[in-house]
């Protein structure tokens, strides 16, 4: 037997293994094959192939495992149960970059399903090796490691804390500064997922100096990168005033507004979210947003998109207006009210309508001038119809009721109030009549108009319980007019007149 014949056997075996692994990896891309593969016991076969002598086979086996684990959490759990993770973690530190990439892919695919699986990865000690991979030369390896870390960190605060404790944050900040867009994207999203859980985690992200680098990249033309960066910044700033101020100090302000004009919906949404998270903390931060022209930009942004993209912008307007009357005035002069009323009437979904109603209530509750600005856009009837409609959700009803109430209590713009006399339920009618009773004693023109438009007649028709607040209001309205007029408009006056005609004895008899 020659040497060649002997070697041929090895070659054949190796070829067969390669082919097997490649085929499995190929088959694992299709969801319909996965059940069959699992039933055929692919997991244990791949496990042994992970320890193969040939690097290519190892890598492909890892890839196949990753694809299987990516499919659903049962398979991911099977990967954990088969004790594959320790092997992977052990060889992750040793092998070449292709293997590292594949192994990080497996870890990512396992960790993304549930906190328990992510915890299993952490228990294997994968974090340290993943963090070492973040220091690799190859951007692909870094990306895969950052991705795996992101999927581990996104589940809950403890896992995030574990990732932070492994020292990933400074390296992720370094990854942001790399030239590769994909790596930047993943690193930014990993930072976002770490910062979202608690103020302390966000503080560690800020301490690593991430904010300045993130803020610098806001002008990047890549839309996906931008939306991850904006999400990271908003997750940092959502926790406390200090963190929001840190974000503001990175001079994001005129730049973020350009993101509101972006083509990409997610960029717009996340930019509005960022502005909302900053504005919601204090009046000073809101003022800063207003002074930078953020309110106008957000309003334009609300006008230029539909659906859920609008929601953070609407909430931001509400937060700004809630802080003080001057800020609410700024929202009004930025033409925010017409835009919000458009949202209120156009949007099909209840939660967006509820947010718009809330924001309008926050704008209109300060002074009569604010209430007037809301009332002239003809928003009140819409709010009332939302409140009365049986189709609207409970939350929407509560929010629109509160908005109507807070606007009505300040509203002195009578033309807008008049329709409410006719079709409002008693609990709202009370406020309407109360407003009339406050305004009419001091305004003669309004008194005249109130009679000619038939308001007085309507007021006489209201059946109020004696001694109630409503009755008091009605009485004070009646006191503004001469008695004959009140009697003339009270229901049944014609009958009494006719009775007098009946009972009258003509004098000439």
């Amino acid at each position, binding site marked *: 037997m020659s040497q060649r014949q002997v070697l041929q056997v090895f070659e054949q075996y190796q070829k067969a293994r390669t082919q097997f692994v490649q085929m499995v990896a190929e088959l694992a891309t299709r969801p319909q094959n996965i059940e069959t593969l699992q039933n055929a016991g692919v997991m244990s076969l791949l496990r042994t192939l992970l320890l193969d002598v040939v690097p290519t086979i190892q890598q492909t086996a890892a890839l196949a495992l990753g694809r299987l684990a990516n499919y659903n959490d049962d398979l991911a759990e099977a990967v954990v149960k088969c004790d594959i993770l320790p092997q992977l973690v052990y060889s992750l530190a040793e092998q070449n970059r292709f293997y590292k990439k594949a192994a990080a892919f497996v870890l990512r695919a396992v960790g993304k399903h549930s906190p328990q699986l992510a915890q299993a990865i952490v228990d294997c000690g994968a974090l340290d090796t993943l963090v070492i991979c973040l220091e690799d030369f190859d951007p692909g390896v870094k990306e895969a490691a950052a991705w795996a870390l992101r999927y581990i960190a996104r589940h809950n605060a403890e896992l995030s804390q574990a990732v932070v404790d492994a020292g990933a944050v400074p390296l992720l900040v370094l990854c942001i500064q790399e030239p590769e867009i994909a790596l930047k994207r993943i690193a930014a999203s990993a930072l976002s997922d770490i910062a979202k859980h608690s103020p302390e985690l966000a503080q560690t992200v800020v301490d690593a100096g991430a904010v300045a680098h993130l803020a610098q990249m806001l002008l990047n033309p890549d839309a996906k990168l931008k939306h991850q960066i904006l999400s990271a910044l908003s997750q940092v700033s959502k926790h406390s005033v200090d963190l929001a101020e840190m974000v503001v100090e990175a001079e994001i302000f005129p730049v973020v*507004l350009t993101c509101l004009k972006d083509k990409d919906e997610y960029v717009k949404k996340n930019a509005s979210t960022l502005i909302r998270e900053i504005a919601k903390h204090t009046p000073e931060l809101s003022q800063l947003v*207003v*002074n930078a022209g953020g*309110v106008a930009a957000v309003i*334009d942004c609300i006008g230029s998109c539909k659906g859920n993209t609008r929601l953070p912008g609407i909430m931001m307007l509400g937060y700004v207006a809630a802080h003080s009357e001057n800020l609410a005035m*700024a929202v009004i002069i930025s033409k925010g009210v017409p835009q919000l009323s458009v949202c209120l009437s156009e949007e099909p979904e209840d939660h967006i309508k509820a947010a718009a109603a809330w924001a309008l209530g926050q704008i209109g509750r300060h002074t009569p001038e604010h209430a007037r600005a809301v009332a002239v856009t003809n928003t009140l009837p819409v709010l009332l119809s939302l409140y009365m409609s049986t189709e609207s959700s409970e939350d929407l009803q509560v929010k629109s009721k509160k908005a109507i109430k807070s606007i009505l209590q300040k509203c002195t713009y009578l033309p807008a109030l008049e329709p409410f006399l006719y079709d409002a339920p008693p609990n709202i009618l009370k406020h309407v009549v109360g407003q009339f009773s406050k305004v009419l004693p001091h305004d003669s023109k309004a008194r005249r108009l109130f009679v000619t438009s038939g308001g007085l007649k309507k007021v006489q028709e209201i059946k109020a319980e004696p001694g109630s607040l409503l009755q008091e209001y009605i009485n004070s309205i009646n006191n503004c007019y001469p008695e004959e007029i009140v009697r003339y408009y009270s229901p049944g006056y014609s009958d009494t007149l006719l009775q007098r005609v009946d009972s009258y004895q003509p004098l000439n008899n």
Partner: protein
Amino acid sequence: MATLARLQARSSTVGNQYYFRNSVVDPFRIKENDAAVKIQSWFRGCQVRAYVRHLNRIVTIIQKWWRSFLGRKQYQLTVQVAYYTMMMNLYNAMAVRIQRRWRGYRVRKYLFNYYYLKEYLRVVSETNDAIRKALEEFAEMKEREEKKANLEREEKKRDYQARKMHYLLSTKQIPGIYNSPFRKEPDPWELQLQKAKPLTHRRPKVKQKDSTSLNDWLACTSARSFPRSEILPPINRKQCQGPFRDITEVLEQRYKPLEPTLWVAEPIDELKLAREELRREEWLRNVNDNMFLPFSSYHKNEKYIPSMHLSSKYCPISHKEQFRSENPKKWICDKVSVGRKSKDFQTVLPSFELFSKYGKLYSKAGQIV
């Protein structure tokens, strides 16, 4: 004595008579006593009542005076209190007036300055307008850029299509499909085809070396180094007016490739790198690091082949004569470089950097007159 006797004789009768008379008088005596008591009690009652009446009258007078005294005192006190409260009310009213004015002034001046608010709102609306405008412009710019990029992409695609379809160009003999002789003017595509350069056959691409050694970095041949200008230097540019050098000379200098000295050009650890490369190759090809050699006597009957130098039939060649002709006139390097007297072999030893640049710069400082 007789009297005595008489008296004695009469004593029994006296006793009897006494008893008798007493018994007769007794009922009257009780009655009279009762009457006397009645009269006395009535009289005494009248007397006491009169006295009490007298006392009451006096007490009323005393009380009247005392009460009037107390009342006056109370009244004075009430008047004082009323006066005091009136004054306090007045003071409070005045204080309210003062406070009202002051508070109004303070709020208008420091807290809610109406004109300041107006001004602020005006400024905010101005900023808003400015921001809106700027954003609008920004969006427009973006859109324009994108449109331009799209157009360029399409143009490129069309050009490529034209290059691919260049064979459909009409010739003098054969009208192409776009240049029908039955139509007045040729199809616009025909013009496009005329402008396009025919697509040549694709040559197998020479795979670029992945290594990024120093030379690649400096000569800017590597993809990872500085951006290279894709366009070639312009062929004929007009001579600038003024005391400038000839444009070709300047361009030659500008686009001159890097000529590192031998010292810099050659890596120091060439041998080590080569070994490394060899080992990597070997490792890539092999399944196993240890060669699988079952038969130890496999190489036994292999014949040793000596190298060519050693296997010469003649005497071994001396190295000195081997490389250079004896006759200096036949040396080629002398012909190549005119500026220098004679040329020796390039030394392996480090050369002085300035000398290697000698004569290649266009500053006069280096020229020998």
